[in-house]
């Protein structure tokens, strides 16, 4: 799910950047008298529409990614609690060594995957902000 989001996010973000750069190119052409005002307005009109579309799409994606990041943070906290609880039970000799090892490995793997995904999402969000 993340990779699909990330891919869309990256595509939309780069398209938005390109559209903004195109607008800048049009501004330069107008300033250099290489383009007339009516042609500029015609081209910039559709470009502004594109920029608005990309921005609203990106905003929506950001919102979803922020929600997902919150969800992952909760998940990471929960996994950490499970790990602490596991350690305590191990110290109290409530668990067999084999069970302890298995559970610990599972929690640690889950925690790592959660933290990796979270880092990736936060990285993507930071790129836009």
């Amino acid at each position, binding site marked *: 799910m993340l990779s699909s989001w990330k891919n869309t996010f990256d595509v939309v973000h780069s398209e938005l950047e*390109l559209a903004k*750069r*195109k607008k*800048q*190119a*049009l501004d*330069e*052409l107008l300033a*250099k008298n*290489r*383009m*007339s005002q*009516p*042609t500029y307005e*015609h*081209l910039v009109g*559709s470009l502004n529409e594109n920029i608005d579309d990309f921005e609203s799409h990106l905003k929506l994606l950001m919102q979803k990614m922020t929600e997902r990041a919150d969800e992952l943070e909760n998940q990471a906290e929960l996994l950490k609690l499970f790990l602490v609880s596991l350690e305590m039970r191990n110290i109290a000799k409530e668990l067999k060594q084999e069970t302890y090892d298995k559970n610990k490995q599972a929690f640690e793997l889950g925690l790592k995957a959660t933290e990796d995904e979270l880092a990736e999402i936060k990285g993507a969000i930071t790129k836009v902000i």
Partner: protein
Amino acid sequence: MQRDTRQRLVLDLKNVGPLKQIQLEIKPGINIIRAPNASGKTSLIRGFTSMFSDQVPPAHILALDEVQGRVTVQYGGKSYVKSFRRTPSGSVVASGPMLPFADHRAFDACVAMAETGVVHKITGGGSIFREYLENLSYGKYYSTVSSVAQEIVNELSRELASQRFERFESLPLLVTELTNLYLRREQAEARIAGLRSSHESEVQDATKKKGDKKAELTRQEAMLSELRKELNNEKEKEQQLKSFLELTDDSAKVAAQIKNGISDSKRRQEKTQKELSKESRRLAGIKAEFEKLERQYQDKLSEKVKGLNTLETELQRLNKAIILKEEAIQQAEKFPEDDPKYGGQLVVEVRKETMRKIEWLNKVNEYFQEKYMRRMTSAKIRFNRNINRAFRELELKGFENVFLDQNFGLHVVRENGVRQPIETLSASEKLTVSLILMLAAKETFLPDFPFFILDELTLSYDPSRFKHVVNYVRQRVPYVIVTSLTSEGTGKPTVTYEV
């Protein structure tokens, strides 16, 4: 409201078809024009129709071997003359006034001839009457305006898609390409700045190293100077002690002390001398290092930055490409000066104006389409109502209904409810259906037109059916003209009247 048409009408024809000269009087009621075959009955009808409609070409009216002809109608105390003249090129032109109730649609609704119009269509098995109703209801005008608007829209759309506008349509692509060039230029500039900055730091580094070595060299030289000074002082001290010793008794205790002092001074001199030699060597080393650093510094200063040339060439190439692209954009936004239609104009403005025209024409098209649909729907409803009435009043046996469907297709329903294809009707049934349609058309669209003409259609009917149909027409139309074949008489058409 029916116009009062109960007046006599005198028809005078000259050089019409095979008729050299004939005068007939048409009276209110049923006028039966009798004549043998090929004696001019149909020509007479064609000549008369030219006084209220232009649907029969003048060349079909004027006698083939004549250059001039004439149709005169005396009606309502006035005389109406239509002249026909053959031009040197062989075509025939007509001139002259029409009768006051003239209407070109009357030919389709009130003149039943075997070879034209509804009768011809139905006897040929035709069953779609859209065009017929379009003509009679003037729906054709709406559809023509609509078609013309659509044709202009198509023309303008083709123009917008033509090569003339191709360069303008490529403007977004050109802007994208220009943006890419700008981005590449920015990257090249950033790399050049990076290389220059890196080179500058290397030069700064070499300057610092050289400065440090220079300071070390200065310190070493100062130290050597101190050592030399110290050695000189010690030598002076030794000379002084030696001069004291000459003045002193050699056996005295003082002399021994002076000798000791001289020995100490010599030892110190030797030590200083050694140190001086050592530090001099060190100074030589520092000097060599300093010279090496100086050379390195000079080399670095004069050194060309690696890769900078390539990048600068690339930057120049990009700048040229940018200028060319900007020129291409500038050219694409205008029509060439030598363009015959839009020379020098801004494409965007021509395009905007064309789009505005298309939008307006689409509205016109839509408006007239709607008017057309309303008119045609209303015409069909009224037409069907009149068909139904004529059908009921004629009390035709064997039929249940005759009507036009929503696609203007004619349907004939037999008594048993079975729909019968038009082409399978008998000759008299086809004729009856044709007459019903024409009467309905007249009632619907030309209620005030005073004539109804049946040209030699009686052959398909038995006498009683013929009488029944003609009497029905007579009840609805002031003047009924019927042509009939006869083998009697002089060969010229004659009229008998039945009121």
